[in-house]
């Protein structure tokens, strides 16, 4: 029989990465970015986006240098085995907490916009169970689902953005070039964190069948996100202006709330946008669970990984209920990403890259001296 945990194509992993990045940044980016850089948001966004592209390509390069090796094997080969064990355990814990927060935010948004009377716990559990089903289908199913959904999501979001043009005020873009260099540097983390998700190429890279094309596709995935963020930010700022944006929790959703189709069968697209958004966020949460399961399987050297999906659900469920309200949950998440995500997405991969390059150089010197 044909298993579903086999190989995915580079384009499929690129689609997975795009959806993961989209899910983390799309809700709040316009607000945080405007708070940090006002009308010069686009300078920061483009610089940050291009920077992330380079980092992502570097990480894809790590995977490319170890074709078919899992993340744990890569770390063992570059930074010794004990480090690998400790780091993978840390990473799994990190991902459980991250997963919990992402689920919580989704549930809060759904509760606020769609299901006012439904308990939060029910929303969270129903979502988690569907995610478990997808994860049990294996990485191939995830890759295919991403490749199926992304074109639809892209087209629909561009159509929605196009519909908001009617309300735009172009003076909102001015004044430009007010920002100083130090402000750009200060604002950069906001951008960097909204691209989180690209680092999963390290975990899923082992399942890609044409590894030599991986760098190209990973870079492409980040650029697609950069393009989408620019479009979305532009539309939001054109509609609301820099001052109003800072007072909205989720400016992107508010943006789509302004769309109206008078005379059509569907007058208010808000609920429809929410339904679409649930799908986007689902696709950014499901890979996180799958990543955990993959890492744990490596850790215990198991063969089948779909049995590990369900036992993780209670942990994620408890984490998702931390924080009494949305504001508290967001505060915790921000602190958490500031420290943990920096290590996971930037510092540790850099260490691997350095170790890898050093080892390569030593090897080359060793072979030339012989």
């Amino acid at each position: 029989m044909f298993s579903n945990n086999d190989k995915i194509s580079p384009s499929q992993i690129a689609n997975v990465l795009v959806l993961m990045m989209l899910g983390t940044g799309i809700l709040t980016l316009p607000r945080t970015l405007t708070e940090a850089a006002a009308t010069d948001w686009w300078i920061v966004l483009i610089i940050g986006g291009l920077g992330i592209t380079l980092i992502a390509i570097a990480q894809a390069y790590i995977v490319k240098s170890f074709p078919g090796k899992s993340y744990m094997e890569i770390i063992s080969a570059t930074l010794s085995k004990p480090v690998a064990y400790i780091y993978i355990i840390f990473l799994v814990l990190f991902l459980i907490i991250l997963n919990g927060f992402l689920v919580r935010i989704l549930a809060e948004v759904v509760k606020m916009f769609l299901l006012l009377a439904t308990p939060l716990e029910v929303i969270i559990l129903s979502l988690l169970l569907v995610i478990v089903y997808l994860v049990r289908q294996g990485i191939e199913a995830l890759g295919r689902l991403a490749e199926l959904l992304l074109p639809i999501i892209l087209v629909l979001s561009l159509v929605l953005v196009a519909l908001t043009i009617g309300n735009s005020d172009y003076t909102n873009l001015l004044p430009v070039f007010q920002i100083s260099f130090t402000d750009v540097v200060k604002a950069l983390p906001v951008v960097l964190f909204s691209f989180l998700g690209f680092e999963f190429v390290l975990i899923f890279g082992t399942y890609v069948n044409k590894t030599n094309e991986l760098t190209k596709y990973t870079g492409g995935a980040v650029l697609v996100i950069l393009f989408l963020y620019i479009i979305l930010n532009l539309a939001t700022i054109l509609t609301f202006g820099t001052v109003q944006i800072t007072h909205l929790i989720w400016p992107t959703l508010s943006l789509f709330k302004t769309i109206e189709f008078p005379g059509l069968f569907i007058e208010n697209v808000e609920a429809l946008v929410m339904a679409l958004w649930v799908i986007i966020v689902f696709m950014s949460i499901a890979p996180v669970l799958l990543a955990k399961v993959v890492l744990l399987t490596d850790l215990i050297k198991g063969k089948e990984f779909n049995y590990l999906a369900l036992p993780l659900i209670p942990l994620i469920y408890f984490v998702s209920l931390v924080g009494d309200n949305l504001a508290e949950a967001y505060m915790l998440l921000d602190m958490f990403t500031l420290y943990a995500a920096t290590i996971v997405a930037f510092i540790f991969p850099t260490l691997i890259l350095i170790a890898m390059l050093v080892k390569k150089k030593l090897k080359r010197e060793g072979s030339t001296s012989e």
Partner: protein
Amino acid sequence: MGLWKKLLGNKGEKKQEEGQAPHKSIEMNIKTIKEILKDCDDIVYREVEVGVENNVKAAIIYTDGMIDRNLLNNYILNNIMLTVRMTPPSPEDIKKQIASHLKDHSLAVSEMKEVETIDEGVTSILSGDTVLLIDNYDKLIIVASKGWQARGVSEPVTEIVIRGPRDGFVETFRVNTALIRRRVRDPKLKLKAQQVGVRSKTDMAIIYIEDIVNKKILKEVEERIKTIDMDAILDSGYIEQLIEDNWLSPFPQIQNTERPDVAVAALYEGRIVILVDNSPFALIAPTTLNAMLQSAEDYYERWNIATAVRLLRYLAAIISLLLPSLYVAITSFHPQMIPTKLALSIATTRQGVPFPAIVEALIMETTIELLREAGVRLPGPIGATIGIVGGLVIGQAAVEAGIVSPLMVIVVAVTAISSFAIPSYNVAIGFRLLRFGFIFAAGSFGLYGISLAKLLLLSHLCGLKSFGMPYLHPFVTFVEDIGDIKDTVIRAPMPSMNNRESIANKNERNRLDDKQEEEKYKEEEE
């Protein structure tokens, strides 16, 4: 474990049958066969004596009703009883080689073979062939004499097209293989026959075009057919269910068709066709959801019309899956989505209805499913009537009685019509079943529930494979197989469809004739 075994059935070992070699003496052989076929009163034994001196015994054995009597009388019995006496050499001269002489010179039949075990002979008798026994000869001569009352080739009932060939498969295996062979005059068309079913010994054939087919898929199909262990195979549906990838899925992973042109088109695409005796349905593997939403007519009609029809069909599939659940979600959770006037009018019509929208939807959906099932079971003209009577009368009466709102009746009717627009009956059933799941999801979580149910369904479909082929191909390998999109929601113009889908063998992706292509380039150069 014991319960599990009972549920799944006992998987016994395949019985190995030792073949018994025929005896020299004809009496012994007839006795053995009579022993095996004891109490089978439809078997006919006819013993004759050959030669001028009538000293060589022979016998023919066949099943009554399954053979061509005309052939048996005129070309077998006539020859061995009469012609042999009249023409030289006289049997006296060739007494030793009488069997080979009969075989090579006397029997005027086109197909004949010899078998070396009694069991094979018995199987041949039971499949409609005639066994000829000759004294002092330790082999059985089998004469192909199959001929029985069969349905003639007629128009397929389930796949009707306005334009296209009108012939359909029938229950007779040979007629079906001929219908396929007539459309493929290529020595590369391979037809591997075998028998399945321990007791039924049903003929079946795996058909493919050797250089186009994907060898990996072919091997998988052959291996899975080898694992079939059943006493009887009565229809291709048995084989379909015994070799499919995921028996839990509501979606069929093997396509079936009554149309030879559809089967042959699949062969030319590199798929594998399985024909089973006694079944007018050929199986096509591997298949995709996309292939199930296509009709043969799409290729016979001009491309722009075909494209429009296909778009309509995909829309129909979505409507038949989602419309009732959207109605439930919007009326009970998100009335702000629809224009105020419409929301008010819906509220007015639902004013007298005592049930929540989900109960209303379930009542009407169940009713329409009952009507449909009843319509299928009743004889033709009454079936059509019950649809109209049931649909109109019950719908009208239900509204007047205040059980359902008029809008619900419209929703259910549109949904039913949409599900009839799906060309493949078994996919339509899958959507029908899932529709109820969607109604429950919408009734408990509104649009969020529909989104979750959609994701669950898509997760399932993305994990599903048909013989190694992703079920949602080519939508799930959009970037790699962008060329395959030409034959999906759209149907590209015929001249541009010069590549096979990626199901086919990689070296044979081009459909054009190489020689003609070269000549074309030469002409252009000149």
